[in-house]
């Protein structure tokens, strides 16, 4: 089986061939023998090249990918075969196109920190949403100009609600 896995903006070609309990896994031309045991619906125990053990959890949904693959305690967003339609819309990314900043969770808008037409820089706080008893600053994902503001202070918003568009 042939897969296309995108991690950290880089696409990798991965070929998986089953050989008994083991898999021959080729990532970008380098082949490793991987012994795979499924622990539960989301966890695999791997032993790479007969020596290196690693627990990997694979969970759906992540800002920046379809999946969160956790290896060595580090969550790594990944996208398999370019199924980008499962990607959340809130991360915007540093790439092309307008950033549509959406509420990552339900909550209340406590402050709108920018005005329409204002120039913003990447990582600049633009809206503050209160949820789980905490005020959370949502930041611009890229440099740009505030094109649209869809919320007012005091408004309740659902998860995924469009807050601000940065052009």
């Amino acid at each position, binding site marked *: 089986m042939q897969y296309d*896995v995108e991690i950290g903006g880089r696409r990798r070609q991965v070929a998986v061939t*089953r050989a008994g309990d083991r898999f021959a896994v080729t990532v970008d031309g380098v082949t490793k023998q991987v012994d795979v045991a499924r622990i539960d619906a989301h966890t695999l125990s791997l032993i790479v090249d007969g020596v290196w053990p690693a627990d990997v959890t694979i969970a759906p949904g992540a800002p920046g990918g379809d999946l969160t693959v956790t290896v*060595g305690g580090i969550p790594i967003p990944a996208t398999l075969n370019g199924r980008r339609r499962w990607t959340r819309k809130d991360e915007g990314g540093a790439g092309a196109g307008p950033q549509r900043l959406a509420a990552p969770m339900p909550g209340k808008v406590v402050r709108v920190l920018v005005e329409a037409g204002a120039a913003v820089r990447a990582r600049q706080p633009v809206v503050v949403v209160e949820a789980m008893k905490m005020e959370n600053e949502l930041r611009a994902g890229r440099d740009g100009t505030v094109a649209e503001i869809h919320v007012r202070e005091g408004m309740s918003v659902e998860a995924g609600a469009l807050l601000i568009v940065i052009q």
Partner: protein
Amino acid sequence: MRKILIANRGEIAVRVIRACRELGISPVAVYSECDRTALHVRLADEAYAIGPSAPRESYLRIDRLLDAVRRSRADGVHPGYGFLAENAEFAAAVRDAGVTFIGPSPQAIATMGSKTAARRAAERAGVPVVPGTPDPLPLDLPDREIAAVGSRIGYPLLVKAVAGGGGKGMRTVTDPADLADAVRSARSEAGAAFGDAAVYFERRLTRPRHIEVQLLGDAHGTVLPFVERECSIQRRHQKVVEETPSVAVTPSVRRAMTSAAAAVARAVDYTNAGTIEFLLDEAGAFYFLEMNTRLQVEHPITEMVSGLDLVRWQIRIARGERLDVDPERALVPSGHAIECRIYAEDPDNNFLPSPGRILQLRAPAGPGIRDDSGATAGLEVPIFYDPMISKLVAWAEDRPLAIARMRRALGEYLVAGIRTTVPFFRWLLAQPAFVEGAFHTTYLDELLRSRNGRPFAEPTPELEELAAAAAAVDAALSPAPAGVAAEAARQSGVIGSNGSGRWRAQARAENLRGM
């Protein structure tokens, strides 16, 4: 006492249930709509639904809690922390229903709940307080006189809500020109958060440490202070790491501070568990900050170095028992303990809340490790409450060993489905200043600002390759045609019958396209 109702949820409700079981007391849980599957509900002998998920409609409803007390015929109520734990009206209502409130008297809660009244009580007990205004500022004080009061206190100063807590209604003012605005915004925040817009001023100490003294008081006049807890590692005025003892407290400061704490408690006839918070300045002088009239989140570290079970003592004190503990046992720590508060937050995304379903959970264990948790795999972390899912505690013979043990435990901690602050703690416990114990209350905020949002754990190319391999193998092992889409549908399908419909439809469409 044979049956205790726990007027709380999550990990602290689980903690109290455990103490009840060990005393042969039957634990009773209450739960809001979204907490139906919470661990505290599943562990209790009885469980009573008390209303919708919003705290104001359930865990903060005194009438519904008292109704559950009556229906269960509980003869004790433990408030946990947060919610109504420091609400004098609730404590009085429980008492008036003929039921034992496991905590201090309503009078002690009311006195210490007002920061200005608490400061006066400390002064009466001969304990120094941070210089500040003795009374709340009059609500109609003109700006000109606000400025005069500010210059008497000196800058930088803090505007603080009289009813405050958790950094709400608090402003730091460095420039006298900003004072009037800071007073207005602190008043409005305090009014919204606590229903009380009163504020007062306090001098802001430079680089203080937050040191606190846990104590127990019984109904027979005994007050038992414990060795101090160091709680200076804070993010936005919220503690994130606590440890005991503090590297900054000498034996003579410990003696003075614990006696001062006991004196404040005696001044208000304090009973049950409480904590006196102090600021310790760089010269070693300490000042009373406030008293928390409840069990604290960080109580386990005190339990680890004293060998005493504070929740069990809360219950024993409430039923009138004598606190027959050797004071030396509380004041001489056995080893060192550290706590990390594990939150459902994404540290790589400005600590945004990360509610959702926990798909996989493997908590650390082994020598010296204690994980006080309310989380299990399959649990939905709700958006309505504090995002703390667990308190991870490490104990060892000394501080370096306790740090090593905590780092080992953080390495074992595995949570999938939601983001947690575990990667952040792995980073923090490797910081040289943390390892040396050289920090103060604004250390962490300054350090985080200087990082400018860099991820706490960056995968190496090797780990990325391994992740790519694992994602592909997982897909190869999953039933065709759409492992990912099926996973996504399964994950969201459990949130509720309404919200899941759209996801299921999309997953079906995805599967159809795949065929």
